[in-house]
């Protein structure tokens, strides 16, 4: 077999060699092969010639202009009757485009893979039935599952039931071909049960014939943002509430001071004109009463300001039972006078988180109220009990006293200078202060009452810090 090769026109074009080039040999062909592929290609040709393996290979050639092209080569041997190889027929195809496309595909796959794995956004490839085919670390972290666990799950299992239908109907629009992607703010469940807020973007992936393969889902975890928003709106609420209460307080101050000052100016005007001695004495007594009332009012307003300022005082874990029995001892005389019965159903080791002085003042106020407004027709019975709830400790003060008509008075009950009984000591300051003190301790006070049956005040305290 000679070394001479017979090339067709396409081969010349492929190798970018002038068509009139003479004496093209195997050596010529081999010289064009890329140095890195040369030895392998030569060996493969030899293997074909020796009948070991047909030539079917890929290699690179370096054209005279320096360009590197990818070639697929196929060759068969022709043998004579004796079985000797007499001819080697080969075809070379230019597969550079294919190779480039493959490399680009590989690169794009690699970059997708890199983006998928390293993204801060939770990503998943979701099968048409909703199961996870592939998930990234970020999604696992957001939802609290291991990759292995998520891959056995369906997106429905981690979706908040209230948001599932929205998601499903949008997904259906994709499967029906009405859209190719969608974006949705939805809630997921973390493995430990808490809600995760996410922005989900779903994109359809189709094959060349347009058949839907799967979905690519991207989930941006916005839980911290939502949490911050909630925190902010709570702050705005608190600020609004405080503003309202300050404005209210300003009106209370204005009203209460005005009512005294107007009395004082009226009385002094009378006094200036009055000639009659006994009437002058009468006016002086009233003037003194008016100044005393003004003093009281200022003391009360001061007390209210103190509560608002006192919120800076430190909260402490306090034994509730001891606090109640201490106050009860101080009220012993009044309790005996009224023949009242005081039942305390509080665990002796129960602690609540309070400002101690406020707790004392609240207990004193509620107990005093129950005694002061007891029904003359019944032996006063005061029952104090507690309950541990999920985020608070509630304490109930229940009495069988006169009660209050809440239909008429519920909005005024905790207001300043609001009184509901024709009782001379009623000043309308106690419950107002109590409510302010409870709020200063992040708690609240509620009331249930029926006229002539009794009242129950329910206090919500913070749980002790451990």
């Amino acid at each position, binding site marked *: 077999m000679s070394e001479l090769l017979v090339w067709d026109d396409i081969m010349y074009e492929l190798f970018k060699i002038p068509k009139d080039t003479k004496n093209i040999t195997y050596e010529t062909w081999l010289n064009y092969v890329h140095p890195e592929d040369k030895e392998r290609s030569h060996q493969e040709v030899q293997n074909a010639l020796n009948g070991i393996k047909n030539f079917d290979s890929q290699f690179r050639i370096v054209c005279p202009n320096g360009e590197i092209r990818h070639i697929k080569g196929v060759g068969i041997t022709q043998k004579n009757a004796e079985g000797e190889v007499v001819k080697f027929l080969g075809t070379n195809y230019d597969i550079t485009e294919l190779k480039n496309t493959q490399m680009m595909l590989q690169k794009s796959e690699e970059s997708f893979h890199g983006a998928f794995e390293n993204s801060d956004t939770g990503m998943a490839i979701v099968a048409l039935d909703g199961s996870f085919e592939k998930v990234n670390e970020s999604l696992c972290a957001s939802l609290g599952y291991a990759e292995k666990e998520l891959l056995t799950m369906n997106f429905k299992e981690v979706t908040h039931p209230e948001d599932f239908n929205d998601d499903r109907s949008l997904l259906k629009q994709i499967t029906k071909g009405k859209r190719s992607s969608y974006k949705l703010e939805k809630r997921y469940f973390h493995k430990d049960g808490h809600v995760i807020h996410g922005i989900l973007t779903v994109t359809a992936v189709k094959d060349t014939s347009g058949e839907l393969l799967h979905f690519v889902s991207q989930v941006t975890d916005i839980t911290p943002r939502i949490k911050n928003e909630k925190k902010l709106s709570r702050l705005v609420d608190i600020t609004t509430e405080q503003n309202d209460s300050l404005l209210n307080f300003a*009106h209370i101050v204005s*009203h*209460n001071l005005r009512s005294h000052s*107007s009395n004082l100016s009226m009385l002094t005007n009378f006094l200036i004109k009055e000639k009659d001695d006994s009437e002058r004495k009468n006016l002086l007594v009233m003037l003194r*009463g008016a100044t005393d009332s003004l003093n009281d009012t200022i003391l009360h307003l001061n007390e209210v300001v103190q509560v608002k300022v006192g919120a800076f005082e430190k909260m402490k874990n306090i034994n509730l039972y001891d606090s109640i029995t201490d106050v009860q001892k101080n009220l012993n005389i009044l309790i005996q006078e009224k023949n009242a019965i005081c039942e305390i159903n509080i665990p002796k080791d129960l602690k609540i988180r309070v400002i101690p002085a406020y707790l004392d003042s609240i207990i004193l106020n509620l107990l005093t109220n129950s005694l002061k407004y007891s029904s003359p027709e019944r032996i006063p019975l005061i029952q104090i009990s507690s309950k541990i709830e999920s985020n608070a400790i509630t304490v109930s003060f229940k009495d069988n006293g006169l009660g209050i008509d809440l239909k008429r008075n519920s909005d005024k009950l905790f207001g300043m200078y609001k009184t509901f009984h024709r009782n001379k000591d009623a000043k309308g300051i106690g419950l107002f202060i109590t409510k302010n003190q409870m709020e200063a301790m992040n708690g609240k006070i509620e009331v249930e009452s029926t006229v002539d049956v009794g009242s129950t005040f329910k206090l919500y305290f913070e749980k002790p810090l451990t």
Partner: protein
Amino acid sequence: MNITKIRSVCIIDDDPIFIYGTKRIMNEADFTDEILVYNDGQAAFDGLKAMAERGEELPSMIFLDINMPIMTGWEFLDEFIKIPNNNSENIIIYIISSSVDPRDIARIQQYKIVNNYILKPISIEDLHNILKSVGN
């Protein structure tokens, strides 16, 4: 100008000093010969209702405080207009209060039976003005 006395006045207020002062000024101004006093809205409502039921003539003018125990001035107004034969179109009602709270002032507009608002302390000039406007 012909100044007529008010036939009878009802003061509804829980402040004894205000009541004393108002009575005294009314005397000075020769405002009325008959003064009826209640110390809270509930007492006033009960008293006036009983009068209406007995067929007695109700006072022709009411001086009403807002902030009172048991029943406020507002609640009194709400209940008062429900009394049958209350003759309210012939009764002139003045709100007399220390409140400068715009919410209170705005609320007065909602009560058609309220004639006007007088800020405490009430003065003899206030009473003269009332007499003039009634005379007209």
